[in-house]
Structures are given as structure tokens and as C-alpha cells.
């Protein structure tokens, strides 16, 4: 597979939703340890609404579809991470406004726009023990894949691996943002719940490619 259609992007969101659903309790537990414990609830609600909403969307502008998902996330899950993901999706959508299909090159641009959106809205950086720490290494992998001319499924297998590694590394980091920041040094030893979401998003995408090789 070299390009993704809108219909395939919709399927990918379906796969992400499934992974998030399966990990609801895991996310609650992670967030409860260093936050308010709602992440499992907000994320399942957010992706559930996105999947419902896009089913009814006949828009054939990839950018609009993805930005719309951001709006849905913002409305349904206006928590910290929901709002950051909403910002990310809206910025990513902007990049591919007018497109009907997207390839790895566009996906990397979208990823960078998303990461910049999160950084700006969250006033945060890679290394601050947030979702950025699983998203960023994954996007770096995709960027490499463009240069190495890899196929989408191979690229996303690597990206998922990088996201997973990134998530694991958050365990030894110190939280700098959100509720977890109140724990300071005490946050060491607890992996970040938002980074887990970043990893699960890439797991969902990976699952899509596993099923559609």
C-alpha cells in the first residue's frame, strides 16, 4: 500500500478506537497514579464519537475529515489530552486540505504539524514526559521511512515500535506538565498516561496494516 484513501483513514480510526477501548482500564490506572484517572473514559468517549461521526461524513476532502475529527474530540473530550489531540488533528488536517489520498510524505508533514500544535497549545517539549514522548520518535521513524522509501506497512511497524519504546522511556522521566507535574521527582517510576495513548494510536494504525497487507 502506497496511499491511503479517506475510507481507509476511517478504518484506521476504527482500529484506534478498538485498541483504546481494550486499554480503557489500563489508561485509567496510569492516569489515576499521577493524575485524575479519567483518561480511559475521555479517550474511549472521544474515539467512539469520532468513529460514529465519520461514518456519517461524505466529505471527500481528507483535510476536512481529519479536522472535523479534531472538532469532535474537542467537543466530546475537552480534557487536557483530548484538547491536545484535537489541536493536533486540526493542524494535521490543515496540511492535507483538498487531498483525496495521502502518502507517507504527507503523513510525515501531518505528524510534524500535529506535534507542533501540541507543543504550542501545551507549552511543552519532547522530554517533558507527555504524549510527545511517544509521538515524536514515531514520526522520526516515519520520516526515515520516507527517505528509505519504505512501504506504509513497514514504516508503521517501525513507528509503532518507536512509540512503544518512547512510552516505556517515560517511566524514568520527570513530569513537567498537567496534574502529574505536582508529583515532580515522585513521578519517576510511573510511565506517562498520555504517552500510552500516543503508543496506542500507533498500535491501532499498525493493526490496520496487519489486517490489510
Amino acid at each position: 500500500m502506497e496511499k491511503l484513501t479517506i475510507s481507509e483513514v476511517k478504518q484506521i480510526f476504527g482500529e484506534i478506537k478498538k485498541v483504546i477501548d481494550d486499554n480503557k482500564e489500563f489508561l485509567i490506572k496510569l492516569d489515576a497514579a499521577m493524575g485524575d484517572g479519567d483518561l480511559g473514559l475521555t479517550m474511549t468517549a472521544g474515539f467512539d464519537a469520532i468513529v460514529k461521526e465519520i461514518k456519517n461524513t461524505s466529505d471527500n476532502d481528507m483535510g476536512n475529515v481529519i479536522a472535523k475529527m479534531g472538532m469532535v474530540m474537542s467537543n466530546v473530550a475537552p480534557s487536557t489530552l483530548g484538547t491536545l489531540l484535537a489541536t493536533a488533528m486540526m493542524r494535521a488536517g490543515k496540511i492535507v486540505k483538498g487531498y483525496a489520498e495521502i502518502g507517507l510524505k504527507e503523513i510525515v508533514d501531518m505528524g510534524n504539524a500535529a506535534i507542533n500544535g501540541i507543543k504550542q497549545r501545551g507549552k511543552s517539549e519532547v522530554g517533558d514526559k507527555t504524549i510527545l514522548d511517544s509521538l515524536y520518535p514515531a514520526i522520526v521513524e516515519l520520516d526515515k521511512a520516507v527517505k528509505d522509501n519504505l512501504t506504509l506497512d513497514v514504516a508503521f511497524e517501525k513507528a509503532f515500535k518507536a512509540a512503544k519504546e518512547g512510552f516505556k522511556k517515560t517511566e524514568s522521566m520527570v513530569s513537567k506538565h498537567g496534574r502529574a507535574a505536582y508529583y515532580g521527582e515522585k513521578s519517576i517510576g510511573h510511565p506517562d498516561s498520555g504517552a500510552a495513548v500516543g503508543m496506542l494510536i500507533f498500535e491501532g494504525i499498525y493493526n490496520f496494516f496487519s489486517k490489510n497487507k
Partner: protein
Amino acid sequence: MKKIINNPDNFVNEMLEGILAAHPDQLKSASKDLRSIVRADAPVKDKVGLATGGGSGHLPVFLGYVGKGMLDGCAVGNVFASPSAQQMLEVTKAIDSGKGVLYIYGNYGGDVMNFDMAAEMAEFEDIKVESIVVADDVASAPKGNEKKRRGIAGLFYAYKIAGACADELKSLEDVKKVTEKALAGMRSMGVALSPCTIPSVGKPTFEISDDEMEIGMGIHGEPGINKGKLKTADEIVEILMRNILNDLPYKSGDEVSVLINGLGATPKEELYIAYRKAHAILRESGIKIYHPYIGEFATSMEMAGMSITLMKLDEELKFLLDKPANTPFFVQA
């Protein structure tokens, strides 16, 4: 914790239906989803609009202070979760009389991001918006790092001062300025004795053993600065007051209003026992008490515990503090 609720998923909406059914003369909904509530007479002609918002589970904060002499509107989130930027925008549009809108809300990540998004959206619709972030909890970040602090019961004072000033038909800049002055002289700190339970989660957000308390804990169960054996009321108040007084610092000759706030399950009897000690400490410190408030002003559902807030006063703030207010949850004659 046992709750008097129906389906946990309907907790916030049913609460809102109850509030609107009880106070139709004071409140109305500015949107179909009931999450953008404004004064029944909004927008108030020639008045700066005051908006707030935040997660549910803290009544009277936030919605309870929408009414005459205080706020014009409130965006209502799920329990302990920010409302959406869209919901804030609905409030903004419904309360703007053309004089602009001031956002006053607590310093929590989700709220800040959503109010920032909402402000961008509102400016796009040509509504002038300014923002004030309340960050009064001295326990949540050390001195020098005041911007990182959480907002707790001090929200009440911010609403009261801003509301009274807006009622005088002052400009957006003036309302913002006096509220910032009030905040600059305001410090809070709390103690939690028991956790609370988010209805849809169904189990307590944290654990605290039977003979312990957590000094400095936040209203969502954010960790405090000291978890230890439960102390006496006098000792607890000593600790809170010492931290508050030293932080600003407040000094002999100052005049303050004191707010003793119950977090939900702590009886008013105990709040007055705490006030007794706070009063004595202020007297000893040569600080004059102007108008104490004792009761439930910012809660965490059924959490046991309390917080203390001091606000330094000058003649302008005293005048504004004394002005009447009439909201579903707070009346001052």
C-alpha cells in the same frame, strides 16, 4: 462512597436539569446541550460579561456563582473535566453586550487550553476577550513559581470582586485590573481528610488511611505537600495559616477577608472551630479581619477537608466585597 444518583453517565446533565428547573428566573441555557449556562437576563446592557467554566463536582464553583453581582455565564464540563472550547464560545457569545468578556477560571491544564482556544474563536467573531487565571493554592508550587499554582476557593473572591466592579459598568480593562489586584493579595491552602469518587469511575480517586490527612491536597485529589497523621483542628489551621501568611507575606497592619471553605463532607461546626483558630492567629499577627466567609464555596463532591483563603483588602476592594450579590448559591444583602 454511596451517592444519590441515577445513571452515572447522566450525572452532570441531570444536575443541570435540576438547577435550571429550580432557578428559571435566574439562569438559562445558551445551547441545546445545557453545558453553556448564562444569566436569565444575559447579555446585560453596557456591562462587561464575566465568564467562567470548569469541571463539575465543585458546586457552588463554578456555575453556582452565575447571577446578579457576580458572573454572567459558565461553561460546564463533566466531573473534574474541562468543558469544551465550543461550549465556552457559546457562553461568550450569549453574554457579550459589546463591552467585551472576561474569562476567570482556575489554573488547570485542560481549562487553560480550552479557554485559550475559545478566546481565539471569540476574537475571530469580533468579541473582545481577556483572561484571568486564578492560581491561589500556595501548596501547589513553591514561591517564585506562582504561575504554576492551581486555583481553588479563591475563585469565589475573584468572582465577587470582578462581579461587583463589572456591575459598576466599568471597562473590561478596569475589571481585569482590580481583579488582578485582588488575586495578587490572595493566597489559599487546604487539607483533605477523605477522597471523593467520580460517579462514572465508581471508586475513590485516591486512598488515605483512617488516621491520616493530606495537607495541601488539591480539589481533584492532586497530591499535597505533606501526608501525615491527622492533627487537631488548631494544629491544622496553624500549618495552613503559617504557609499562607509567609507566602505573600501578610504583615501586621494588613486588613484581610478570610474564607474558611468546606470541601464537601466537613460539617459547618468544624469550619467554625477552624475559623476560631484562624481568627486568633490573625489577631496575634496584628492583621485586621474585615469580612469572614465560612461555608462551602468550592467543593470536591463528598470529600472531607477544608481550605483557608486570605485576601488583602484596600478601600476599593472592601467597597466591592461589600456590594450585594444574588446567585442561586450565594446571596449577600
